[in-house]
C-alpha cells in the first residue's frame, strides 16, 4: 500500500478523536454564544481547569475514569457559574464588546493563576485505561481512542436530549431565541443563563480530561493553544448548529493531522487559521448555518 494512504488512514482515527474533543468544547462555546451573543474566550481556560480538576481526582483520589470525568465536569461547571456571576452578570446590559473584554480579562486571570499553581511544565496525566491497539485490516485504533469516542458520543447525545426534550433545555433555547420574550413567558432568565454557563463549562471540563487522557499530559497553556481551536471549529461548522460544531471539529482535526503529516508540524496552526479565514470569507455563517445571523 502506498505510504500516503497509510498516513492518511493513521491520521483519520487521530483526527476523529481531536475533532470530537474540539466539538465538545465548541458545543459549550456555542451554547454560550447562543444565549449571550458573547465570544467567551475564557471558555478555553475553563477547559484547562477542567483537565486539571480531572488530574487532581486521578492523582490524589486514585479515582476511576467515571469519577475523574465527574470531578472535572463538576469543577469546571462550578467555575463557569462563578465566572458568569462575577464577570458577566453585572454588565449584562452593556454592549457585546464590553462583555468580550470581560471574558478576555477572565481568561488572563485564569491562565496565569494556573501557571502559578501548576507551573509552565507539562504535567503527566495518569493512565486511566491500559492501552491496547486493535487493528482491523490496516486500520489501527487504540483502546483510549475507542473510549474517547464512546464518552464523547454519549455526552453529545445527552446534550442533544437535554436541549430538545427537557423543560430546562427548552427554556435555554427560548432564552437564546429571544431573551425578553422568554422573560415575559415566565422563564427565569438569570437562572437559565447561569445553568447554561454551568452546562457549557462542564462540557469543556470533560473535553479537558479527554485531551489529558489522550495525550497523557496536561499543561496550563493548553487552553490558549488547543482550546482556542475549538472556536475555529464553531465558526467553520456554523454558530448555533450542533452537528456543525462536530463537523467543524473533524475538519480541523483532520486538516491539522494532514498538515503535520504532509507539510510540517510548525505550519499546523497557520493552516488551521487559513482554513478558518477562508470559511469566514466564503461563508461567514458557517458550513451548517441554521439561520442567517447578520448582526454578530
Amino acid at each position, binding site marked *: 500500500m502506498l505510504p500516503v494512504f497509510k498516513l492518511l488512514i493513521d491520521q483519520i482515527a487521530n483526527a476523529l478523536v481531536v475533532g470530537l474533543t474540539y466539538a465538545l468544547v465548541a458545543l459549550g462555546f456555542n451554547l454560550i454564544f447562543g444565549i449571550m451573543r458573547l465570544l467567551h474566550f475564557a471558555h478555553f481556560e475553563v477547559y484547562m481547569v477542567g483537565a486539571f480538576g480531572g488530574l487532581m481526582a486521578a492523582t490524589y483520589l486514585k479515582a476511576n475514569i467515571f469519577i475523574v470525568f465527574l470531578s472535572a465536569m463538576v469543577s469546571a461547571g462550578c467555575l463557569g457559574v462563578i465566572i458568569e456571576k462575577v464577570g458577566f452578570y453585572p454588565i449584562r446590559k452593556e454592549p457585546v464588546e464590553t462583555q468580550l473584554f470581560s471574558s478576555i*480579562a477572565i481568561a488572563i*486571570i485564569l491562565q496565569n493563576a494556573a501557571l502559578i499553581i501548576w507551573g509552565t511544565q507539562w504535567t503527566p496525566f495518569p493512565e486511566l485505561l491500559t492501552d491496547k491497539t486493535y487493528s482491523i485490516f490496516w486500520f489501527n485504533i487504540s483502546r483510549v481512542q475507542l473510549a474517547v469516542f464512546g464518552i464523547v458520543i454519549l455526552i453529545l447525545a445527552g446534550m442533544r436530549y437535554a436541549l430538545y426534550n427537557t423543560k430546562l433545555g427548552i427554556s435555554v433555547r427560548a432564552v437564546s431565541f429571544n431573551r425578553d420574550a422568554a422573560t415575559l413567558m415566565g422563564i427565569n432568565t438569570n437562572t437559565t443563563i447561569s445553568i447554561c454557563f454551568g452546562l457549557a463549562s462542564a462540557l469543556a471540563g470533560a473535553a479537558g480530561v479527554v485531551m489529558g487522557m489522550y495525550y497523557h499530559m496536561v499543561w496550563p497553556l493548553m487552553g490558549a493553544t488547543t482550546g482556542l481551536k475549538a472556536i475555529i471549529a464553531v*465558526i467553520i461548522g456554523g454558530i448555533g448548529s450542533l452537528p456543525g460544531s462536530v463537523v467543524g471539529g473533524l475538519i480541523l482535526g483532520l486538516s491539522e493531522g494532514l498538515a503535520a503529516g504532509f507539510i510540517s508540524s510548525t505550519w499546523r*496552526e497557520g493552516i488551521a487559521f487559513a482554513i*478558518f479565514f477562508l470559511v*469566514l470569507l466564503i461563508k461567514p455563517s458557517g458550513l451548517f448555518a441554521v439561520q442567517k445571523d447578520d448582526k*454578530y
Partner: protein
Amino acid sequence: MINTNKTDRYPFFNSGIFYGCMLVLFLGLVPVIFSNPYFLRMAILTFIFSILTMSLSLLLDFTGIISLGHGAFFGIGAYTTGILCTKMESPFLLSLPISGVVAIIVAIAFGALTFRTLKGLYFTLASWAMGEIAVSIYMNVEYLGGTNGIRAIPLPSIMGFTISSDISFYYFTLIFAILTLISIELIVLSRIGRAFIGIREEPVVAGVMGVNVYLFQILSFATAAFYAGMAGNLYAYYESFISPKSFTVWESIFLLCMVIVGGRRSIIGSVVGAAIFTFLPELLRVVGEYREIIYGCILLATILFRPTGLIPAYHFLSRRTYYNGHTTS
C-alpha cells in the same frame, strides 16, 4: 452676564493646547532629571506602545472596529524594517515610510476582503485569524529568520546623526508619539473623524447620511495599520532584535487592554493606558509572579466599575465634545 471664572479671561491658559505644551515641556525635561537607564527604557517603550494604542483607539473607540490583528501590523512594520536594514542596508528615512506603507497595503487588502461581508464580532474573528497567520509566517519562513527572528538591526541615523544613547532614543520616540497624538486628534476632529464616529454609533444611519461605510472602515483600518507599522519600525530599531514572540495575538489583546483601561473616548487616555501597562510591571516587582493576574484584575475591575476607562472624553485640540456622544460615563 458677568463671567466670574477668572481663567476664562485668559482662554489660552485653560485650553488643551496649553496643557499639551506643558506636558511636552515636562516630558522633555524628565530625562534631564531622571537619567536612570531603567526608567528611560520604560519611557521609550511607553512611547512606542502609545503610538500603537492611539492608532488602535482610532479603530476601537472612534470607528467601533474590534481588531485582534494590530500586533500583526506592528510585526509587519518591524519585520519590514529588519529586512530592509539587515539585508538591504536602507537608511532610517527610507525604512520608516516603507514599513508604514507595507502595513497599509496589507491592511487595505485585508479590509477590502473582509469589511464587505463581515461585521462586528465576525470581523474580530477574521482579524484574529490574520494575526495568527502572520505569526505563523514569521515563525516558518526562513528568510524572516524563523523562530530566532532578526538580529543585529543597526541603529537609526538621520542625515549623519546616529541615534545611539537611551536619551536620544527617548526624544526620538517622544517626537513620534507627539506627532501621532496630534495627527490622530486632527483626524478624529475632522469630517473624516465624524464619519468614523457615525459608523461606530450606527453604521446603517451613517450610510443613509452619505458615508461610504465600507470605504471609511477600510480607511480607518489602513490609517491605524500605518501607525502600527511605524511603531514596529521604531521598535525594531530600539530593540535591534525582533522575534515572532513580540507580535502574537496576545500582544494585540494587551494593546486592547491598554486602550480599554486608559479610556474609551479619548486619544490621550490610550497613552495613559500604555504608560500604566508598561510601568506597572516595574511597580509590581514586589508581587513577582502575580503580576499578570493583577493585569487581568485591573482590566476586569475597569470593565465592571468604569466601563469607559480611566480618562473621560477629552480632546486637547478642541473644547467641543458634544458630537462625540458620551462625554462622561
